[in-house]
């Protein structure tokens, strides 16, 4: 196997590659053309710092022990990222608007830039993250040892050999190397606006290495050691995927916990929110990051199964990723796996230490220094130097702390479960953060109480006992509670048993945290600044461009501001900024006027370097007469609400308008159609009236001009005039009648009429014309008792009209016109079939129109018979239709009337 020296050289070489990548990335960013550095892909790879060595080695171990439970750690973040539009994008927007530097800064800014909250969140983060860093160091040390020894130390112990002493050296040098890297690239500047491009580039590279390594091992295991997926799953221990007793609670707990951790872990907040350069990156990461998690998880279970089936019984599942290739003598692959684990450990260490160092220097060191007289005497650039120095010291201190922790706890099992314990610790920040960005009333005192209570309970029920018996808690205190007080048992607080320690601790800590947070928020009043910040955070999407300077009034001399800015930003940067703002104000000199807008701008700029709380403290030290106008705030909130309401109203209106326009168009179309029909009608009416009028006029003219016309001739002319007048009157009567019926102005007294009898009467009336025309009426009445609500004379009129029409247009000598009646389903039906050529297809629609006559050379009717008949029948709630039939077989009209059958037939 490889010697320790060769392996060390490889590690150094790899770290050198990281340095070069970071250097190139930094240089590229500084050149002003960041290019691919700001691509969503690099951003996503940076977020994958979530996958630490705990994932790389530990997920396989978890899969070997608990089956599918490991996926919950990746499903939670997946759910948060696919729902990015509501939480992540809001956090990013707020952070960018306020130059937020860390999760502690975020929460403290929300609650009125409270220093106390910033300190508490920082402490929680450091306490939770230090063991986590130790875990990474341990992973590197152990994997180093495994590669060098060429065997699993666990197996060696199980076989009776002596485990090699842990190589603290390797861990130490890793810690030192990471410290150097982080100092060089992570603590270069103090302004978050200049992001750590170099670090991000290096982290992205490491993300590719760890993904490649894990997939390579997975592919080798599935296709090299076994014969494909099926053969791997055949080797699976039968009960590996069988849900355990506490499966359901743990499953839910872990999904929720990991979805909270993906935002609240300081390193995740740092890469996702603080390092974000473009909000659109989040949209891509919303699916790309879950895809990364998916890919990294897909071979975990096969590797675990292979480890259980190919390696000897005592092998440590946490090292399967390394020991499997080694057992198959694939040393190159084992080395790649080692580098993958190394990458995942180092990237976590680098980003965590940067995020924690920013928090420590901004929220603990800076406020302390501000309390000393030094801060007042500080010269130009002093504070910036002090800040950088404190950041560097913090980085070294954090890594040293991690290393010490690893060294001290290496004997115990304390580290193995630290991943989830750390998650649970940082998750305490979730209620106040998520509540803070969605709930205006969320109160700083509530947040502080919740944070402290949650943190304390987490430490008591999960963190401190995790060191094992007799480290913090004595064995008896763990088993029976401190001083024998049973209800204080750390793993069964208040007698709550039956849960695994993680769920138990989360239940109690979250209960206390959320309960205090919510109830105090509901009861206590907010400070003015808190209300202002709450409104600005919650409504960040609705109040774009509205800056807090509208609500905060204070006065400072511009000289004081300049001195302050110099101390924090350095003289050059301060001068550039002041001159820039002066130009914006339209001034000639280098000094702007200290308006509220400028003070606010400067405070934000300083907040990007030293955190919101410290920036506010420093400005407040030199400002006088500060007042926060809540009236203005309410006004803006109202304006925003009004704007929303207005836009909704506009939207509604325009929808209404659209609907109205559609209705109008439809009405217009109808009117046009009616207008055309009216014109048609008038044309026809005048034509119909013209014919009789013309003959009346010409005959009367003849009579007038020729006085000597003989008696019989003048009599004939007079009788023509008389007949035509009658025809004219009849025509006018018909038109009048039709129009009355059409407009619904006629009301006949309706009574029960026996329809068959009416039909019989009509047939009798028409008998004369029929015999004149030489046709027979074949009457077959089959509904003797059918009675309809109608008016008898009108009904007879319709039947007569139909029969006369049939005779007029469809008579063939010697044939019969068939008239049938029937009754079924509450309807009386009368059909009349003539023996003529029938009505051509194209005319069938038109026969019911006014003044339309059948094709008959000499016509006597006005063409109003059918329309009038139909109107009459419709008045009786029935209908008159022309039935479809083959052409040339005679026209068939049908009258339908709603009717009933009565035993005693009415008249």
């Amino acid at each position: 196997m490889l010697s320790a020296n060769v392996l060390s050289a490889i590690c150094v070489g790899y770290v050198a590659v990281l340095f070069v990548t970071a250097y190139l990335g930094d240089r590229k960013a500084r050149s002003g053309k960041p290019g691919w550095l700001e691509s969503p892909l690099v951003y996503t790879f940076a977020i994958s710092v979530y996958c630490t060595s705990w994932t790389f080695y530990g997920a396989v171990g978890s899969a070997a022990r608990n089956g599918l439970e490991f996926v919950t750690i990746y499903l939670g973040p997946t759910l948060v990222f696919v729902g990015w539009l509501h939480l992540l994008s809001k956090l990013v927007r707020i952070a960018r608007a306020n130059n937020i530097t860390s999760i502690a800064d975020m929460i403290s800014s929300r609650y009125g830039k409270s220093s106390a909250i910033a300190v508490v969140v920082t402490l929680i983060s450091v306490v939770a993250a230090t063991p986590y860093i130790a875990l990474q160091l341990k992973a590197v040390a152990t994997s180093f040892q495994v590669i060098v020894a060429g065997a699993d130390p666990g197996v060696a112990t199980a076989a009776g050999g002596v485990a090699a002493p842990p190589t603290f050296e390797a861990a130490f040098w890793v810690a030192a190397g990471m410290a150097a890297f982080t100092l060089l690239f992570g603590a270069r500047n103090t302004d978050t606006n200049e992001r750590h491009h170099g670090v991000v580039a290096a982290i992205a590279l490491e993300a590719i290495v760890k993904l490649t390594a894990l997939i390579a091992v997975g592919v080798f295991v599935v296709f090299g050691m076994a014969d494909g997926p099926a053969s791997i799953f055949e080797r699976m221990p039968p009960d590996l995927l069988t849900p355990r007793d506490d499966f359901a609670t743990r499953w839910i707990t872990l999904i929720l916990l990991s979805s909270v951790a993906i935002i609240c872990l300081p390193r995740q907040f740092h890469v996702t929110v603080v390092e974000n350069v473009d909000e659109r990156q989040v949209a891509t990461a919303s699916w790309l990051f879950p895809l990364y998690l998916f890919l990294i998880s897909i071979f975990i279970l096969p590797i675990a199964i292979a480890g259980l089936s190919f390696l000897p019984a005592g092998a440590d599942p946490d090292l399967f990723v390394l020991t499997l290739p080694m057992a198959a003598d694939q040393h190159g692959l084992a080395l790649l796996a080692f580098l993958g684990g190394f990458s995942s450990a180092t990237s976590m260490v680098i980003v965590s230490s940067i995020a924690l160092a920013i928090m420590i220097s901004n929220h603990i060191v800076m406020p302390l220094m501000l309390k000393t007289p030094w801060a007042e005497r500080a010269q130009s650039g002093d504070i910036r130097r002090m800040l950088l120095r404190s950041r560097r010291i913090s980085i070294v201190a954090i890594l040293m702390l991690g290393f010490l922790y690893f060294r001290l706890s290496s004997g115990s099992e304390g580290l193995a479960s630290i991943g989830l314990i750390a998650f649970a610790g940082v998750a305490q920040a979730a209620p106040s953060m998520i509540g803070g960005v969605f709930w205006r009333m969320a109160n700083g005192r509530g947040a502080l109480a919740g944070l402290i209570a949650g943190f304390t309970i987490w430490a008591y029920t999960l963190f401190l006992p995790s060191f094992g018996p007799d480290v913090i808690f004595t064995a008896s205190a763990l088993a029976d509670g401190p001083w024998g007080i049973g209800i204080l048992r750390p793993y069964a607080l208040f007698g709550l048993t039956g849960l695994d320690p993680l769920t138990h601790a989360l239940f109690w800590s979250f209960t206390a945290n959320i309960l205090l947070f919510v109830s105090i928020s509901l009861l206590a009043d907010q400070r003015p600044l808190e209300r202002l910040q709450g409104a600005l955070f919650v409504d960040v999407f609705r109040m774009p461009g509205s800056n807090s300077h509208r609500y905060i009034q204070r006065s400072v001399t511009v000289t004081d501001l300049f001195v302050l800015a110099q101390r924090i930003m350095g003289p050059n940067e301060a001068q550039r900024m002041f001159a820039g703002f002066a130009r914006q104000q339209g001034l000639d000199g280098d000094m702007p006027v200290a308006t509220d807008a400028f003070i606010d701008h400067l405070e934000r700029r300083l907040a990007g370097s030293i955190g919101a709380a410290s920036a506010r403290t420093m400005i407040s030290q030199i400002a006088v007469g500060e007042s926060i106008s809540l009236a203005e705030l309410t006004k803006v909130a109202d304006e925003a609400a009004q704007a929303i309401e207005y836009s909704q109203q506009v939207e509604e209106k325009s929808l209404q308008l659209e609907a109205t326009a559609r209705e109008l168009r439809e009405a217009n179309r109808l009117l046009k159609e009616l207008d055309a029909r009216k014109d048609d009608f008038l044309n026809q009416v005048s034509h119909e009236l013209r014919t009789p009028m013309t003959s009346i006029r010409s005959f009367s003219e003849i009579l007038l001009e020729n006085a000597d016309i003989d008696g019989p001739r003048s009599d004939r002319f007079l009788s023509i005039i008389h007949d035509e007048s009658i025809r004219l009157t009849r025509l006018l009567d018909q038109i009048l009648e039709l129009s009355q019926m059409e407009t619904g102005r006629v009301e006949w007294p309706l009574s029960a009429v026996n329809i068959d009898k009416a039909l019989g009467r009509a047939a009798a009336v028409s008998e004369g014309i029929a015999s004149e025309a030489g046709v027979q009426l074949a009457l077959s009445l089959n509904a003797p008792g059918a009675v309809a609500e109608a008016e008898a004379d009108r009904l007879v009129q319709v039947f007569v009209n139909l029969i006369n029409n049939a005779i007029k247009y469809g008579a063939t000598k010697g044939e019969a016109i068939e008239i049938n009646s029937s009754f079924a389903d509450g309807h009386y039906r009368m059909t009349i079939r003539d023996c003529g050529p029938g009505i051509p297809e194209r005319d069938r629609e038109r026969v019911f129109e006014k003044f339309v006559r059948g094709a008959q050379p000499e016509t006597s009717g006005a063409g109003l018979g059918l329309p009038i008949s139909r109107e009459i029948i419709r008045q009786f709630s029935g209908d008159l239709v022309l039935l479809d039939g083959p052409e040339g077989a005679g026209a068939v009209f049908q009258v339908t009337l709603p009717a009933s059958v009565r035993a005693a037939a009415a008249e």
Partner: protein
Amino acid sequence: MNATDAQTSTSDQADRVLIQQSERRDRSRAAALPLIGFFLLTPLFIRVFAADATVLGAPLVVIYIFGIWLGLIICAALLAKRLKRADHAFR
């Protein structure tokens, strides 16, 4: 001339309303995605699929979980694409 102007401005407004509506729908979709995902990944579903069956050699429950996972990724990708396009159109 004036009439045409009025017409275009109404159609612009209608477009904006449509864009707003589709944005609102996309926002609802984005909110629904994690909820649906969480629901389908609750222990009861996992228990149902933890049956002793295999698909293509892999246990059914493994296929189920990873399938849901992939489905969420695809939906999120489609949604992100839509939103980005809408974003461009708006500017």
